């Protein structure tokens, strides 16, 4: 791990949360993100110093709204939530127990809360069937833990619900609206990715406790406001796909050594901050160091990664096909730059042995395009 410490420099490692873990899983092919996250590098500070600050952070209005909605869902002993879970999961009338783990007797330290979460979930999982009161049903503010490349990360899902058929469900409370049964797919996808992180962490906890991890359902309960009112509604979201992406990415994280082996020795992303915390390293020097770790830019990085603007500028310099989005890039099968693609299409460049097939397709597309625009030109 000392190699990772050297990459980060003297700063303390930046903590992960479900959001950052989900972002990591969203682009599993990116070595740059994998290395930065494994080393706990402050990506935000680096991007700012490079001159490409990411315009991130939620607006205070969005945060206030999210909090108000969560309070509403949990108000009156989670009355709304119980109604929704009774409809959705068939929770019985007797299953109403509510345990709050926001603190343990006034002690809100992570270690204490995690130990308590563990104890309550173990009790719930091993309670005799039918003994609803002993098992518990809703666990609010639980604290899970995940090992990320050697560092322990604490994660706080919204609620965990347990029900008599022996399954545990992660509940995600989100304040974006489900209108006429439809929600913004991008936001649902982001919520699913985050929820998958919790499911994964909960399954690890079960494994550590010697319980069957399959008791944690891969269906998460997504609670959102319905239509234009503030009434909560709940939907089951299958996160199996997100879970497998996440598992793959996490296993990659632990094998980050392989990426590290390819990096030049002595590489560091240290900003060389002075006593006041002002970076003294020149941004050109830092940029050179960052470029040593290959990135895999995709337009959706812009919504999840601090480094995205730097990577986009880099991709533009190289005329990379990454800029066109994942689908187009994959269609272009291995031709890395836009000028190269155009040259192949126009026939000004001889295709290499492995480019023959794609070159033929490009030329066909080019001919069709030329004919169409010519036809349209004559009509006009």
């Amino acid at each position: 791990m000392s190699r990772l410490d050297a990459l980060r420099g003297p700063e303390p490692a930046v903590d992960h949360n479900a959001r950052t873990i989900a972002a990591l899983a969203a682009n599993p092919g990116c070595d740059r993100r994998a290395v930065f996250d494994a080393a706990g590098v402050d990506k935000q500070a680096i991007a700012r110093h490079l001159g490409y600050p990411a315009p991130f952070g939620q607006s205070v209005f969005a945060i206030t709204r999210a909090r108000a909605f969560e309070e509403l869902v949990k108000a009156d002993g989670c009355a709304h939530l119980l109604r929704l879970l009774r409809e959705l999961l068939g929770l019985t009338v007797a299953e109403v127990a509510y345990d709050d783990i926001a603190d343990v007797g006034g002690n809100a330290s992570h270690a204490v809360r995690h130990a308590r979460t563990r104890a309550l979930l173990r009790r719930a999982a091993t309670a005799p069937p039918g003994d609803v009161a002993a098992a518990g049903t809703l666990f609010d503010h639980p604290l899970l833990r995940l090992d990320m490349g050697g560092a322990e990360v604490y994660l706080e899902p919204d609620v965990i619900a347990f029900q008599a058929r022996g399954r545990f469900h992660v509940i995600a409370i989100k304040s974006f609206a489900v209108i006429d049964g439809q929600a913004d797919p991008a936001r649902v996808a982001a919520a699913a990715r985050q929820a998958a992180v919790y499911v994964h962490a909960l399954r690890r906890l079960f494994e550590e406790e010697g319980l069957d991890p399959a008791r944690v359902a891969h269906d998460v309960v997504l609670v959102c406001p319905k239509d234009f009112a503030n009434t909560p509604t709940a939907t089951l979201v299958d996160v199996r796909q997100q879970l497998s992406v996440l598992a793959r990415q996490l296993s990659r994280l632990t094998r980050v050594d392989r990426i590290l082996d390819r990096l030049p020795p002595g590489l560091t992303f240290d900003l060389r901050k002075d006593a006041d915390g002002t970076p003294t390293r020149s941004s050109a020097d830092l940029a050179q160091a960052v470029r040593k770790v290959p990135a895999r830019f995709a337009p959706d990085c812009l919504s999840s990664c601090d480094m995205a603007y730097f990577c986009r500028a880099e991709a533009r310099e190289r005329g990379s096909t990454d800029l066109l989005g994942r689908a187009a890039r994959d269609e272009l099968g291995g031709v890395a730059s836009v000028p190269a693609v155009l040259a192949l299409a126009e026939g000004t460049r001889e295709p290499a042995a492995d480019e023959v097939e794609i070159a033929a397709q490009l030329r066909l597309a080019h001919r069709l395009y030329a004919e169409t625009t010519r036809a349209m030109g004559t009509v006009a």
Partner: protein
Amino acid sequence: MKLEVLEERIIHLRQQVRRAMAAGERARVRGLRAELRAAERAWEEALEPRFEFEFEASGPPPVRESVHRALSLLGVPAAARLIVAVDEAFHGGGLLGERLTGLLRDEERAFRAAPHARPYRLCAALTADLLSPARGLIAVSTWPLEVRVVGPLSARTGFLTSAVRIAEEIIRLRESGTDAAPAAYRLLTRMARNIPGAVEGYGPADPATVIAAARAELAVHEPADRARRSAAAARAAHRLDPAEQLFGARLRTAGAGRTRRTA
């Protein structure tokens, strides 16, 4: 300042006011009177800390009284959100949620300074397992311990009991000839939507139906809930000192606990 010292000062100031008045020194009388009033206030303060509650008595009722009134209606520990809603539904509102933050801390400080200066204190609900203060819940000190202790099922039984009590209050008001405010019906309907069988369609809830439905579900949870609460209440009565019985035991390390217990 000690009470005796203040009393001497008050007598002395009164004499001076009388003399200045006799000498016709108007400006001096005004200054002396201000000093006298300040000394008298300090005396009241020293006699009974947090006396300023009484000064709020004119105008709207002080926060603790509004809260007490709402809690007395509900009969179970409740969260600030519900207390504010009940105040709005039955007592004309005016109670602001943010004024409830820090209320328990003030009450605890006042209780520790002068335990029996008040007929009641607003206090915490205690968690059944650790006897620590339950987050966000407010209770009344005159309630028996087993009402003030909350177990895992109490969030639900508390909600159902509150719904029953609100419905009963609406019926009572109706029978006395003064119907409840629309806000009261709105509150009841909102709660009823989350109780199976308590309301149908989109109309306002019927109090009698809500009571029947809530009691039906209460019957399922109540035996287990009550058993848990009474066991915990017995433990609390045995283990906690009077202040802790009201405001909860804090989780503490063995060493720190010793020193505080014996202090």
